[in-house]
């Protein structure tokens, strides 16, 4: 097998078809993990292309590059893709690959369910993108969704969304969500039931802890979304009136359903970044994570509180003053455990010997950008501030700082960190530095100025604007920033490709790390460990490397 992640490569070369067949039918959690990441990058290409087209249209005032309908489709597909088809598979891919290795077992609890989960997720994504081919009825199918990734009623109702574009949105997300639910259930079961000997909950690596909370959130949050999508389908095909305002239905009801999914979803997407940071920062600071129990409690409380803050997306919808006050309070409260995590990471770095390898560089940028994201989040939780800036570009800036400045930067950090484990080779440091600096500049150039255009009153989701409102320069900067980001991403993709063949050999434990995945070979064999490990502390490799002063003495 010539794939970089192949297992028994000593045997005679096999045909390409056998390789494809092997991957398509695999139940190996590592291969499925890589497939999830591959799918994420695949859809990231589409999502990025849609974003670029939008930014070209908005680069100058009154530009006529995209028709309004086309812009609205790009806007909808960009949001939907990035949330469901990029963010989610990043999470599932990394968890799939790493959790069995970190908890010292051979595979997920239900390997075939895992494979089915992936293929359903991928099918859902393809179904969503198939809608583009529908192009005004080529297959009698309508065309790509244009109702926004949030699909607010009644814009999604039969009266305002004719054709099948909204149905593609519903069914694509539903199928993909079904796969995500299966995989989340599978991973929860695996963490609960398949840990190696000695790995009690108090010895679970922070990464696995955070992922556990994350998958419970996936299970809890996807349910209301699916329910609401069924109701919308009933409205559209069976003549019910849940959201059909012309027949007395409620537009606000959809928002409650959507955001009771949608807010936890934000935490579903950002928790993996916390999980990766909690592995990477200690290893490169050469220090144990500061305040392990507090990190776990903070994660649990973030998970819990995130279920009670959804209406902060609805501060302008006309809820009562008491409801607005309650949701402001719960939203502000979530800053406490999140801030605690930031302080604990900083304390981990404090007094360390920090090696600024690429994973740590990306993590450092994360620590700056995610703080900005968190602070603008606090600002938006102040309801009157939100009355001015919700649905403005300020909000666009805020959540892109969360999702790119937070999630994507940590995703890059994680790829640089675990790539040697997955492929047996290191990613090129030179290309990596180019990727880091170019992307860092591009990202901040794109989303930094959006805070400004929001404050000057630019609403989001508009396909064009007039000159002379003070928005021109911010928009031009943002559009240039996207081009810079794209160059950075190309370096990243090139690095992935080039290093798989030419990268420096990694060895089993290139970073001198401490968790169980680094005890096995790189790449790991199909069965993960020759002999299932037994652990005595949270850092089994530390114990092995420092027999004179093992961790379990202090835990």
């Amino acid at each position, binding site marked *: 097998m010539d794939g970089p992640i192949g297992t028994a490569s000593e045997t005679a070369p096999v045909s390409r078809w056998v390789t494809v067949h092997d991957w398509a039918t695999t139940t190996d959690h590592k291969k499925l993990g890589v497939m999830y990441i591959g799918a994420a990058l695949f859809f990231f290409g589409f999502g990025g292309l849609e974003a670029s087209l939008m930014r070209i249209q908005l680069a100058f005032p009154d530009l006529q590059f995209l028709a309004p309908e086309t812009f609205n489709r790009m806007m909808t597909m960009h949001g939907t893709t990035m949330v469901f088809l990029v963010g989610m598979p990043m999470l599932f891919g990394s968890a799939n690959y790493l959790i069995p290795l970190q908890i010292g077992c051979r595979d997920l609890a239900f390997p075939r369910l895992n494979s089915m989960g992936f293929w359903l997720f991928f099918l859902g994504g393809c179904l969503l993108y198939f809608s583009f081919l529908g192009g005004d009825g080529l297959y009698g199918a309508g065309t790509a969704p244009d109702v926004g990734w949030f699909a607010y009623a009644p814009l999604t109702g039969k009266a305002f969304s004719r054709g099948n574009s909204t149905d593609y949105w519903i069914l694509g997300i539903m199928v993909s969500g079904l796969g995500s639910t299966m995989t989340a259930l599978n991973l929860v079961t695996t963490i609960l039931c398949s840990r190696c000997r000695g790995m009690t909950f108090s010895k679970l690596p922070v990464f696995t802890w955070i992922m556990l909370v994350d998958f419970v959130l996936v299970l809890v949050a996807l349910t209301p979304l699916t329910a609401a999508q069924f109701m919308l389908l009933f409205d559209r095909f069976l003549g019910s009136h849940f959201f059909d305002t012309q027949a007395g*239905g409620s537009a606000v009801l959809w928002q409650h359903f959507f955001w009771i999914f949608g807010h936890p979803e934000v935490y579903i997407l950002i928790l993996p970044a916390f999980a990766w940071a909690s592995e990477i920062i200690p290893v490169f600071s050469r*220090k*144990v994570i500061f305040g392990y129990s507090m990190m776990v409690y903070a994660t649990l409380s973030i998970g819990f509180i995130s279920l009670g803050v959804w209406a902060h997306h609805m501060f302008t919808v006309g809820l009562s003053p008491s409801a607005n006050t309650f949701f*402001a309070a719960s939203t502000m409260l979530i800053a406490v455990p999140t801030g*605690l995590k930031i302080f604990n990471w900083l304390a981990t770095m404090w007094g360390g010997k*920090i090696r600024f390898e690429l994973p740590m560089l990306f993590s450092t940028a994360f620590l700056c950008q995610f703080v900005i994201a968190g602070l603008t989040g606090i600002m938006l939780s102040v309801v009157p501030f939100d009355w*001015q800036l919700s649905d403005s570009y300020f909000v666009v800036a805020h959540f892109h700082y969360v999702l790119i400045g937070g999630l994507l930067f940590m995703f890059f950090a994680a790829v640089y960190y675990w790539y040697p484990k997955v492929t047996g080779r290191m990613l090129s440091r030179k290309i990596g530095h180019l990727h880091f600096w170019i992307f860092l500049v591009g990202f901040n150039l794109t989303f930094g100025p959006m805070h400004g255009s929001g404050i000057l*009153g630019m*609403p989001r989701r508009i396909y064009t604007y007039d000159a002379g409102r003070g928005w021109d320069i911010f928009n031009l900067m943002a559009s240039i920033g996207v081009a810079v980001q794209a160059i950075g991403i190309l370096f990243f993709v090139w690095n992935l490709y080039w290093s798989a063949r030419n990268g420096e050999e990694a060895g089993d434990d290139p970073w001198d790390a401490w968790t169980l995945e680094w005890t096995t070979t790189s790449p790991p064999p199909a069965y993960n460990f020759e002999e299932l490990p037994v652990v005595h502390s949270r850092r089994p490799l530390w114990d092995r490397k420092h027999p004179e002063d093992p961790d379990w003495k202090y*835990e």
Partner: protein
Amino acid sequence: MPLAAVAEGPMPHQYSNIFDPVSVTGHQIKDISWFVIGICALIFLITQGILLWCILKFRARPGDDGRDPPQIYGSTPVEVAWTIVPMIIVVVLFLATARTIAEIQIEEPPEEALVVDVVGHRWWWEFKYPEYGITTANELHIPTSTPENWRPTFLRLLSQDVIHSFWVPRLGGKSDVVPNKENWLWYDTPTAGMYLGQCAEYCGTQHAHMLLRVYVHTPDEFAVWVADQQKADVEDPKVAAGRELFQKTACINCHTLGGTVANGTYGPDLSHFMSRKTLGAGVALNTPENLRAWIEDPQALKPGCRMPNMKLTELEVDHIVDYLLTLQ
């Protein structure tokens, strides 16, 4: 029209900075915004200062002994401290927020208030003044309100189709315009002028061109504007051809003209149409040339809008334009 006091350049515009408000609510929002921004800036400086210090001070240097630094597993006092301090900040912020909400989220107009019904349509705004029997579109006229002469404007927001959002940044705050749900937004401003606003909730194809303007007049000017709007349109015999054409074609299925047979409600009420500065909910200035272009093909100026190309001949367009130009 004696509206010279309202300064205005050509198409359009002006800044609509939320930190430059002109209303009572806008000022309150600005104050609490600076408060939270100040706190956040402080937190940012502290965390990033620590981060920078770590980067500079604790980076591994060549020539180190290669041994790992002392392992510190945590410290209860420190962790308790950085749980409690943020808690206190949150409580302070919360109290400030709760107070401002209570002060500005008012849903019952007082007796002195001017009440205007705002109806959101795809993709234009309808303004009705029940007190005066006036209906207009896309340009809201309200009086100033001073402590001596207190007259806040209360907007009753309703939607005809999907969700919109009413946002005039300098007047402070926004509120969604939701079908089957009555929302309120109020302004209380002593400063005359023109303020730009825009729909802030995605509402379909032409969400971008659902602009609005708010003209704030002194009470005297406002009274003049009201009187002008209440007048019946002049029957100018020179434009009889245009009037007849307007009433014969499908125009009247969607548009209302006060005092004529035209009473459609699907599109904007065109009574006193020439008193408006813009066309198509802010897509262009209301000049004879633009008006002509709009009537010839609205889809060219605002693709996807609800007004179809009526496929009129050149001469017919001339007549209609001439007629509309008389609707002062």
